[in-house]
């Protein structure tokens, strides 16, 4: 008998999910209701879940950033805000205290800087285009993940950058 506990943050309130595994069957408890799920791992790594009422779902479970899991099934990839209580507390407290943490914006892959649309000190909105990078013959807009102030600008137009190279530093504005 194996026991596990997770916190799901997809709803209004954090929700606790409990699991008890035995052989190919897992007892899943949500909102006080428990059901026995038949589980098989396919040869390509996917899991097939069969619920007591007959519903079947088959998909792959991938790790994402802490506090999230990516499931890939017939609807495509989707992020599930789920974590064990410890990492949940960590990532959550982190999120809470991260108002002043600076956001480092880096190049995903090697390329050439085409445009730099902001300067140090500029106020930027979440989703605003900061830099246009050319890589794999494509122009890629690099956007701000959250609103804030450009604390540092590490590159200029025409510059060639390596993968993971630092491009900008944005200091998030305090969350209201």
């Amino acid at each position, binding site marked *: 008998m*194996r026991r*596990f506990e*997770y916190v*799901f943050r*997809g709803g209004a309130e954090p929700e606790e*999910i409990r*699991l008890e*595994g035995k*052989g*190919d069957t*897992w007892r*899943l408890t*949500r909102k006080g209701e428990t059901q026995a*799920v038949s*589980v*098989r*791992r*396919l*040869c*390509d*790594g996917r*899991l097939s*879940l069969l*619920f007591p009422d007959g*519903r079947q*779902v088959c*998909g*792959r*479970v991938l790790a994402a950033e802490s506090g999230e*899991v990516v*499931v*890939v*099934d*017939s*609807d*495509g*990839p*989707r*992020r*599930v805000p*789920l974590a*064990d209580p410890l990492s949940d507390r960590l990532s959550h407290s982190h999120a809470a205290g991260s108002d002043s943490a600076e956001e480092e914006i880096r190049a*995903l*892959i*090697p390329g050439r800087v085409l445009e730099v649309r902001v300067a140090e000190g500029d106020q930027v909105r979440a989703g605003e285009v900061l830099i246009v990078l050319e*890589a*794999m*013959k*494509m*122009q*890629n*807009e*690099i*956007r701000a993940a959250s609103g804030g102030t450009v604390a540092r600008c590490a590159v200029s137009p025409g510059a060639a950058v390596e993968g993971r190279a630092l491009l900008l530093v944005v200091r998030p504005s305090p969350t209201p």
Partner: protein
Amino acid sequence: MSSLKLLVANRGEIAVRIFRACRELGLRTVAVFSDSDRSAPHVTMADEAVRLGPAPARESYLSIPALLEAARRTGARLVHPGYGFLAESAEFARACSEAGLTFVGPSAQAIEAMGSKTESRRRMQSAGVAVVPGTMRPAESAAELSEFGRRHGFPILLKASSGGGGKGMRRVERDDEVAAAFERTRSEATAYFGDAAVYAEKLIEGPRHIEVQVIGDTQGRILAVGERECSLQRRHQKVVEECPSPVVDDDLRERLSLAAVRAAEAVGYQSCGTVEFLLAPDGSFYFLEMNTRLQVEHPVTEEVWGVDLAREMIRIALGEPLAFRGLSPRGHAIECRIYAEDPARGFAPSPGTVKVLRVPGGPGVRHDLGIEEGGIVPIDYDPMLGKLIVHASDREAAIARLSRALAEYEVGGVATTLPLFQALVSDPEFRRGAFDVQWLDRRLGQGLLGPTPLRSEDVALAAIGLAAHRNGAEPSAAGSPVSAWRSAARRESLR
């Protein structure tokens, strides 16, 4: 099998597509490769293969001397350029003929004539094919442009002569904006293309991109093989193509075909080619350009019209006449271009290794892929993995089939544009066929890719997936995981 050899001066799915046509024609296949492609499918499926050079295209797939040398070494008599790379290089076509090779494509003259915006417009006008009103040649002054705008009516579009792919264009609403816009466009043109030349075109509002497939043989017969709907574009890049277009009726098809054949005749076209038109909401259409090559989206025409364009293109190059008199369409086809780009990150390129590749099967599903499971999407070239093409009795059935096929499709290891297509098939405006060339960009801005709601099954899947790992001894499928089988297979393949 004849000893005639065909060399494909290309890589990826189009090289694979052409080699398949060669196999069916009984031609021997010769692949060329750069250092990043030695193990790529187009190489491992070929009868012969020759290294061109290092990964960068200009030192490999764009190197005319290296390609000619490869043909000489292998004794290939035909050379097929595919699309992209040297497909529309008159210089390459000429170099092939001078080396005594048969270039599988139109004449260098046809490529040249259609390669120049101004020259092709001139020829179309004298052939009686409507073009978008524009100042044929680069404007000397802003005044010239204002005058044009006043004659044809605003808004107008300023374009860099050397521009393309939507870069170096500027919309001008009113006369008093012309001067400033002219200056800005000139400076951009210089920056981007090192060429300040700028000209003006009348702006067609809410247009669709419709193109007509043409085939001409060396006997001088030129046929139009229906149109393709290519209005679904992201930043001027085609993403999804259809055949037929949901807005083209028989009468309009008739007129488009006539114009396309005239365009091809104007340059004595003897191969497969595509004539692109801008279709205005009022049903009027204007010649945009002619692509003197096999198009990425050629499969939708093949499925609906029952013709093997890649095969015909080779037969024509061998001097054979078209194998058919006329063709008739059946059903509806849709193609999705599967790019290694991450829709969740503004379509940033996502190079890497394709760790998982599960493709759908069943009726009306076709795969033109240039990669296998375990293969690498190199950073040096266009990030398209390949294409999914579906075919069914009508557009509604084709969309249902596409939706079904996408549900069976999985690519792991690199992010792809598959989620974009899954969002599209359930979009009411797409389903109605109500879109123009700007529609997709607009729709993406409006959150087409909004987060899909989580089902309780997904949460259970996530939780059990985590747990099943944590506790190591997780449930296994009947038999052991493929990884084990694979390695078993490898062990055996080595014992």
